[in-house]
């Protein structure tokens, strides 16, 4: 597709979508959002970029990391997050929580394996969709 307006707009829109997807990912535990949605939003950014410019440029924007590798890495991260429970002696995939600066009535900054797991989900969705879309765009 050859549209200067779309291409110019996409450069900014794709970035905003990516940023927004990370926002959705992080806030997911308490507000609407999460890894699935974040991954979907993030991938639409790159899909848009691939349509407006070209798949080659979209791949370059990913630093030429094959999207399927991202998906597999995500699966690995999710698994590691689940295995982390073993360190605490809990069952597989039991969430582990650490609260920084915890006080009586404030939990402080929460860190958890659950978030890592969600990042894994994000990457799986992101990578899977992009490997499909890129392959289709290139082949058809």
């Amino acid at each position, binding site marked *: 597709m050859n549209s200067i307006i779309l291409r110019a707009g996409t450069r900014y829109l794709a970035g905003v979508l990516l940023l927004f997807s990370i926002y959705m990912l992080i806030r997911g*535990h308490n507000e609407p959002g999460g890894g699935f*949605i974040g991954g979907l939003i993030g991938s639409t950014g790159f899909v848009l970029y691939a349509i407006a410019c070209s798949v080659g440029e979209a791949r370059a924007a990913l630093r030429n990391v094959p999207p399927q590798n991202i998906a597999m890495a995500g699966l690995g991260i999710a698994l590691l997050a689940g295995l982390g429970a073993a360190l605490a002696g809990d069952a597989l*995939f039991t*969430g582990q929580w650490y609260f920084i600066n915890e006080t009586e009535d404030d939990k402080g900054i929460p860190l958890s394996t659950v978030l890592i797991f969600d990042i894994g989900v994000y990457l799986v969705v992101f990578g899977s969709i992009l*490997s*499909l879309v890129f392959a289709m765009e*290139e082949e058809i």
Partner: protein
Amino acid sequence: MSADVVGDKPLSGGASGVLCALISAALFAFFASFLPQITAGETVRLAWDWVPSLGIALSFLIDGLSLTFALLISGIGALVFLYANTYLAGYLHFDRFMMFLMSFMLAMLGLVLADNLIALFVFWELTTITSYLLIGFGHETKNGRRSALQALFVTGAGALALLAGLILIGTVAGSFEISEILAQGDVLRDSPLYIPILILVLAGAFTKSAQFPFHFWLPNAMAAPTPVSAFLHSATMVKAGVYLMARLYPGLSGTEAWIWTLTIAGDFTTVFASILALKQTDLKQTLAYTTLMALGTLTLILGQAGGYAMTAFVTFLITHSLYKASLFLMIGCVDYGTGTREANILGGLAKAMPITALAAGLAALSMAGLPPFVGFIAKELAYAGSLEVPSNVYLVAGAALAANALMFAVAGIVAFKPFWRPAQMETPRSPKEARWPMLAGPVILAVLGLIFGLAPGLIQESLINPTVNGLMGSASDPRELKLWAGFNVPLYLSLATFGLGFVLYVVHPRLRGALTASDAILPNFDRGWDRFLEGLKGLAAWQTRVIQPGVLRHYIFATFVVVLAAIGGSLILKEVFPGLPDFSTFAWQNFALIALMVAGSILTAATRSSITAMVALGVVGIGVAILFIVFSAPDVAITQLMVETLVVVLVAVALLRLPSLRLQGVPNWRPLDALLAVGVGTSVTVVLLAVLDTPLDLSLTSFYETASWTEAFGRNIVNVILVDFRALDTFGEIAVVVIAALSAYALLRTTNDPDPDHPGETPEGDAR
């Protein structure tokens, strides 16, 4: 490197061969250390829990029967490893061969020692797989591959039946521990499931031990290297079926069904195999058929009852393993030294290969059943047992007489003729004696046959009596092994055997001609197997053509017909006719939304333009997403929106390349499609209305509402469920996502010619 020159070959194949031989010898010593305990009438049991919830344990039992087998396996194993270390020295994949053979030996030991039905089955299948790998060791040849697959399929199919039979036994007896089951006496025989159990277990045993009509795989299995033939397909693995029948003998035997099935199968296999043995000219094939005969004889004996029969069973088991392994290894030496195994070519080898000739002679005398070898004692006992059978004396004793006479003749063909008759034609290599590691096995095993014959007391108290006691369940049944039992019927039968056998040996060249001529008339199971496989492939091709014609709309049509039949059918059968819900509280915006979605659907179905159809379908999807927002499910709504967007993009990419929806020459299915669509839509609507009619159980919702924050520190219940409460499910799902993406990626990347310069040149037909 020329493999033809014997002198060039190294003495040892490498460290792995020596190591395997040492391990086997150590195992033999370990098992031998149990002899005093077993002689004293004790048993040893070891058990670990494996899957306790299913009653499956890794338990081992050492009693007379299992110790006899374990000693044969590890002892012959040590000699075979020593032999193979020289025989296969310098071969490609030597280490791999040793690993396969070692895996087999350990699996076989597990099989005979297991005291749990499921553990036994696992080891059983491990021997099947290792046997497959070993037969297919020469996988470069078509015949090697075919033989390996045939053995795998036949024994594997039997093993499936066996698994069903073992599970039935476990269910009937309430335990999977063999010793516990057998201690319950008649529980299996009295069960209404006895006949199914018997059929299934015997299907496993008969295929493994190559009983007629499953015998055809064993001669083909001789495609394996000679040490494998000696070890697996003669001395040990093929006896697994016999072992199983013996192991379950106390629980299953004694009924009419047992006696007659085993008698007839054993009878037929014995006679049939020994006649065919006479026909072969390849000495290894000859021995393969005599192995079939021996397995038939063991089955035949197990179909009997009484002390003589059971004593004969154990004695013949040991005897056969000794002489047959020795003969197989001897044939390997001949093959190694002369380059051929053809009976018609070989002759006059005694001068060049004196030690091989000696081992062959000793083993063959035991096989022929001549005194003072242990083979004679085994034969006398078998005759004595056959005279007191509950089925039919003439049937059993007659078969035994015929088979033994033929064995006498075959022993002469295999071990006398090649060595002592005058030299015939030129052999491919000038005959040369084998190296000592290859001679050790045949000589030791053959000499043992003589020693046990002269001093049967060596195995009487330690192995035979405990085994017979275990089989019969009483201490009074074992019969004494003796060379001279006086003038009795078995002795006369033996003399008749020798006479008949000698005649057969003399006339065998003429018999062979007649048998070869009759081959064209008789049914050939090996060719039948090929036809069976061809038929199976034909059936698969036919059903693929019918069910998978390659037209997408047929698939989708068939899928929805099934959905309609399943859902609509059960709705009608269960008489589910829910009433309409109350629409009075429905906000007008919802009606507007529904109208939008209906309009979108109609447009999708009606339009002839693919782009319009796609956009219209997108409208429906967006409508659904808005509906989610209206009913306050923001997470689902966002997901729906994103998925809808991506689907439109993907479909657009694909559809832009597709031809118009109006295809020329395709019959108009649309009325039928419409009918189906209305049917599916109606039944789904009825299901949803029925769901609304049932009161909603909110206990799960309230659990998550309360636990979400207190236990998982999250307020978004959907997300908390996904990443915390049901994280394992999510993990499974994302694994599926990755696999699906990779598969689709692979498909997209392989279907088209990867020519990046001309992406548009894909043939139109491929895109449909």
